[in-house]
């Protein structure tokens, strides 16, 4: 006999404003099998949870339906409460009266009726629930961190310092990421390299960290605690063990005119190169797409030059395999190029540059050794214009979001310019100044007040070249929309921060979800900001959305602590909502006929055919078997099974049919 309790939450007024909660509770009490029903202001609060616990004990309930917010929000909360009262947590189901009813419908009878229907649906489901026990799986205590920017570095160090093995994979020849490109950092104006490079070195020397640069993830299989990662280590064409990093090869390489990625195209590099002086590891790689030997078949100058004989032109990509228990994605972001803006010259004007390029100009290690000189003729610009929100917050450009870091770095850029070119004029076109953060607003005020940066609230409609000047046409909206033209020497566009070009591909490889801009989706926007929807995979930094250094570091430490938490036990308890193939006493054994279609359909290779033997050990059948460690509970196999021999706990056919029937037959 079902002894079900129904608990209706008002969610303050979030639900009760449109749904007559008392009526729902009253109607629920009339449902067959419902022993107890009550409504309450905040069911998720302590008193609310106690209400459930006490009712379970007092009425000896064997099923609970909580009608509240989305189960994606509080299902664990209420299931825990049930467990604490001694009821198996899987005997608790959630009716979604907030997101699916009260927030999307107007107040009225029909809305309350829908709430009642949903409660009835879950009551009927619970009747068909059965107690489930969590599944335990072993955990490999080794983490894979993808991306060697500040986020990846921080996460790796935190995890490694907790005593766990880390595999850190970086796509470029050196770790460091965008932070290594920056000149100074806001709001302190301390040198980016100075604070970053010690961390980079620490990573390289850390006994628990295996650093693999110039490498990418080839594939990731498995599941939380038990991933198998394949890493493609691209051929660097050098023997890293022999190479001393002397750099002689890079001086001899005849191919010197390659735009340097590190300098954002403002400087050049050779085909065999170390991306920047402080690179970690500080050993060169050969860019096969540029090297004369690889493109034309001759040269080998580096090979002849190398005193350590470390050049290996026949080196091939290597595939390395690792068992890991958790993955941190710290693959960072990118900025739009100037060619994204037809109205700003489509990238045709050399002196219209991105913020990241300006960082390189302002950097002491940059192509101009820190002097602000314009790329076209090397002149020091007397008038410089910074354009905020270039692309960001612009639906017409397909980028509705705020890139978040630009307001601050523009203030920094303008300041750096003024510090270096005292007589120069700096203008900033902005929409709003978003300077939320410790010491941030003060920083911007300093730029305006102390360094006399001229902030103009308005958008720039066009930039064109005339007589060697860049004419910046805009409007000052604080002056009644007065059109403004500035004949600048250089323009810096704070171009939108966007996802890495390969972000989507990687997301699909590791099966995490991502938003329409290809930023990775966190499991919950507020409460699970570093988790993904895929268990065991975590996020750090701007692969999730553009963010600045302190935020990235905080997030990386957050992700690391999640990994450390996961690694704190050698076993992990998993949700038992997985597929099961029926087994019965002889002579049936199972109704599965072993056709194997579920085996091919399973995305996790979790199903295999096994021999079923009688007591004497003779094989009587061949039938499917689901590996509980591998099954993720998608249920694709269930829909395939013709004989209905496979079902999924928590979403059994019986439960779902009961739900449908209850939903559509309101009497």
């Amino acid at each position: 006999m079902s002894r079900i309790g129904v608990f209706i939450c008002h969610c303050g007024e979030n639900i009760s404003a449109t749904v007559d909660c008392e009526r729902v509770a009253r109607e629920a009490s009339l449902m067959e099998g419902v022993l107890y029903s009550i409504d309450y202001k905040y069911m998720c609060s302590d008193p609310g949870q106690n209400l459930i616990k006490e009712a379970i004990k007092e009425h000896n309930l064997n099923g609970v339906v909580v009608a509240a917010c989305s189960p994606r929000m509080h299902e664990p909360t209420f299931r825990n409460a049930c467990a604490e009262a001694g009821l198996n947590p899987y005997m608790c189901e959630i009716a979604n009266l907030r997101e699916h009813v009260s927030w999307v419908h107007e107040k009225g009878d029909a809305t309350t009726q829908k709430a009642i229907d949903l409660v009835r649906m879950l009551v009927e489901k619970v009747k068909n629930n059965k107690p489930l026990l969590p599944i335990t799986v072993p955990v490999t205590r080794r983490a894979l961190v993808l991306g060697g920017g500040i986020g990846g570095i921080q996460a790796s160090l935190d995890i490694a310092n907790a005593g766990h093995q880390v595999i850190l994979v970086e796509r470029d020849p050196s770790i460091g990421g965008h932070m290594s490109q920056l000149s100074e950092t806001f709001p302190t104006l301390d040198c980016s390299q100075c604070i970053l490079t010690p961390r980079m070195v620490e990573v390289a020397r850390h006994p628990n960290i295996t650093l693999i640069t110039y490498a990418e993830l080839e594939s990731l299989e498995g599941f939380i605690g038990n991933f198998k990662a394949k890493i493609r280590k691209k051929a660097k064409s050098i023997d890293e063990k022999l190479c001393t990093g002397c750099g002689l090869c890079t001086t001899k390489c005849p191919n010197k005119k390659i735009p340097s990625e590190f300098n954002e195209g403002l400087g050049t590099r050779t085909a065999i190169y170390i991306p920047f002086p402080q690179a970690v590891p500080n050993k060169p790689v050969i860019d096969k797409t540029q090297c004369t030997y690889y493109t034309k078949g001759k040269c080998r100058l580096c090979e002849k030059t190398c005193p350590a004989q470390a050049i290996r032109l026949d080196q091939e990509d290597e595939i390395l395999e690792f068992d890991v228990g958790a993955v941190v994605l710290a693959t960072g972001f990118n900025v739009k190029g100037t060619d994204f803006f037809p109205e700003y010259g489509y990238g045709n004007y050399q002196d219209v540059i991105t913020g990241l390029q300006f960082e390189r100009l302002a950097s002491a290690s940059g192509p101009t050794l820190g002097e602000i000189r314009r790329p076209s003729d090397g002149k020091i610009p007397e008038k410089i214009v910074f354009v905020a929100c270039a692309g960001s917050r612009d639906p017409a450009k397909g980028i509705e979001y705020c890139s978040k870091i630009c307001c601050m770095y523009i203030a920094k850029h303008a300041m750096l310019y003024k510090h270096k070119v005292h007589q120069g004029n700096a203008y900033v076109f902005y929409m709003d100044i978003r300077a939320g953060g410790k010491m941030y607003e003060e920083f911007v005020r300093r730029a305006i007040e102390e360094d006399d940066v001229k902030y103009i609230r308005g958008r720039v409609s066009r930039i064109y070249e005339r007589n060697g000047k860049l004419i910046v046409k805009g409007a000052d909206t604080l002056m009644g929309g007065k059109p403004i033209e500035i004949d600048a020497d250089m323009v810096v566009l704070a171009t939108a921060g966007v996802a890495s070009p390969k972000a989507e591909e990687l997301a699909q490889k590791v099966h995490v979800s991502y938003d329409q801009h290809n930023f990775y989706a966190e499991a919950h926007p507020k409460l699970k900001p570093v988790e993904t929807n895929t268990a065991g995979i975590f996020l750090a930094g701007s692969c999730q959305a553009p963010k600045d250094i302190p935020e990235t570091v905080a997030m990386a430490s957050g992700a690391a602590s999640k990994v450390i938490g996961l690694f704190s036990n050698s076993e992990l308890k998993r949700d038992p909502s997985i597929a099961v193939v029926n087994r019965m006493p002889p002579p049936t054994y199972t109704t599965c006929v072993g056709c194997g279609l579920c085996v091919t359909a399973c995305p996790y290779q979790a199903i295999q055919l096994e021999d079923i033997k009688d007591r004497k050990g003779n094989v009587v059948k061949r039938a499917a078997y689901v590996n509980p460690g591998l099954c993720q509970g998608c249920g694709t196999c269930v829909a395939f099974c013709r004989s209905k021999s496979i079902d999924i706990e928590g979403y059994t056919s019986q439960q779902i049919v009961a739900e449908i029937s209850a939903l559509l037959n309101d009497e």
Partner: protein
Amino acid sequence: MPTVETYKISPVSLEKLFYQLLKEDRKIYAPVRRNDQVVFDLVTRYEEICTDFIQTAASPKNLIFPRYENLFSYKKGKDGVEIQQFNPDSIPEIVIWGLRPCDAAGFKVLKSLFNWDYKDEIFNTRLNKTTIIGFSCNQCDEYCFCTSVGGNPGNTTGSDLLITKAGEAGYLVEAVTEKGKGVIERSDSLFESSDNIRKEEFLADVPVMFTPDLLKEKLEKVFESEIWQQQSIRCLGCGACTYICPICACFDIQDEAHGKKGTRIRCWDSCGFSLFTQHASGHNPRMNQAQRWRQRVMHKYVYMPERIHEIGCTGCGRCSRACPVDMNILDHLKSILKS
């Protein structure tokens, strides 16, 4: 046992009789051609009726023992279950027109079956509200064997009226039951005296292969024989033979529920299905098709004669005709007798 009254009716009057019955607000089911088969269906025009056939694809048993029928409907409430019984008054008066004597004889067996230990009200009401007008056979084929199981092509058993085509000029009409006599009384102007028509002259010649007693005696001895396995190895285990049989009457009871409301339904089942005897535990007392085949044969020719004194087969030959793998019952019975 009431005496049989005989009359003669002209082809024109026979048609009039049909329309007379229709006027009496009875639904008439008769053999018609549909989808390359002769089947029983509702008929409103005399010319639709098919007469040139050996046997219909399925027997008309579904008209009195339907494929599925509502026994009662229910509604569950917090305070218990409300039941609404099936109302036998809703059953209409019908006429089955033009069925073969073997099918009519089948209804007599069904009647015995449904009144053996328990009087089945729904079945009896349906049968009582049905007027059975049989037509004697003037042709047969190699599947027919009514004469070996106690019947014959002009058998009056089970019919209320039996009509025999006596040449081109007219039909011999035998009023077998009070219900049949009532039909004649209500339209007596259509009937003439029978003029001593010799019915036998107009009947098909169905050879006698064996007697039921001989068969029963033999069957009782071969229960453990290999022959069941040999015969049934080809059987696919479908229910075609049982469902088109005029006598097979096994049924299943099912609840069909929609939310808290539902109906309890009686629907056909077949001993040919492996699930027919399967227990909830998975154990199946008739674990293979040979046992199921044996059951079907034994039930018809041994158990039913013992229990209800009727042979469970009228020799209509339908099962042989319908079988997808040509399990010919006559062949099989003959080979059992030979063994």
